[in-house]
């Protein structure tokens, strides 16, 4: 059976991106009321982590980084 490796990679990236984005968004929501410098930095980092997961998800579905093949 032939497995198309790029499609497999993109599928795992999309599924993983959805999971990581949801988990990090939930963690951010749970930590939203916490106070202190370290928790403030954690909230910033979790927000950026969620953004990164969405970017990877969009790259997986071909919305971002979908360049035409060079001639």
């Amino acid at each position, binding site marked *: 059976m032939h497995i198309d490796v790029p*499609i497999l990679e993109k599928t795992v990236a999309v599924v*993983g991106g959805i999971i990581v984005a949801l988990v990090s968004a939930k963690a951010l929501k749970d930590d939203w009321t916490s106070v202190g410098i370290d928790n403030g930095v954690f909230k910033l980092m979790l927000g950026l982590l969620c953004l990164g997961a969405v970017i990877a998800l969009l790259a997986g579905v071909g919305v971002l980084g979908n360049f035409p093949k060079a001639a």
Partner: protein
Amino acid sequence: MAVASMSHGAIAEHEGADQLYVETRALRLQGFLLFLVSDCVLFSSFIFAYLYMRNSGQGWPPPGISRLDVSLGALNSVVLFGSGATMHYALENWKHNNFGRYAFFMLATILLGSAFLSGQAVEYTHLIFVEHVTWAGSGIFGASFFTLTGMHGFHVTCGVIYLTILFLQSVHGVYTKDKYFGLTAGTLYWHFVDVIWVVLFSIFYLI
């Protein structure tokens, strides 16, 4: 009497150590955050140098070099971002005194970090042996790609070693439910490494 005075001394010493921990925690946190800021400056200087050189050339990537594999990059990114989420939950479970789940998430973080490094090794092998892109022989593209991702990979390698040491320390009782600054610092460092990759993935693979 002597035993009683020794135990009083031990208690006083213990209370002194607790007080010292509380007094110095904020300072250590600030010191660690300053270290992360300095690391951020280091990455920023390389990133802006790369963007400047990229925009001053004639098209990107340079002729003869194909675009990077987005599917592998996206997969590798999700693996690293996933490790950020597991690290967060490792610390949360430590705070809530749930050692079993802490150990599970900590080991998952170390495993995912190692998987990311393996993905990078696959990317490097493909670039060097199939695309013939090298650090010194492929102009600005090769130099900037291998310098920035290599520097990031070095940070991830240090992070995997750091987290392994933290895990072993926690197994041997170095940290308690109330005193766990090492784990907080490890989580901050790992999140920082994740966030840097958001930028690197975007500038090398997506634009």
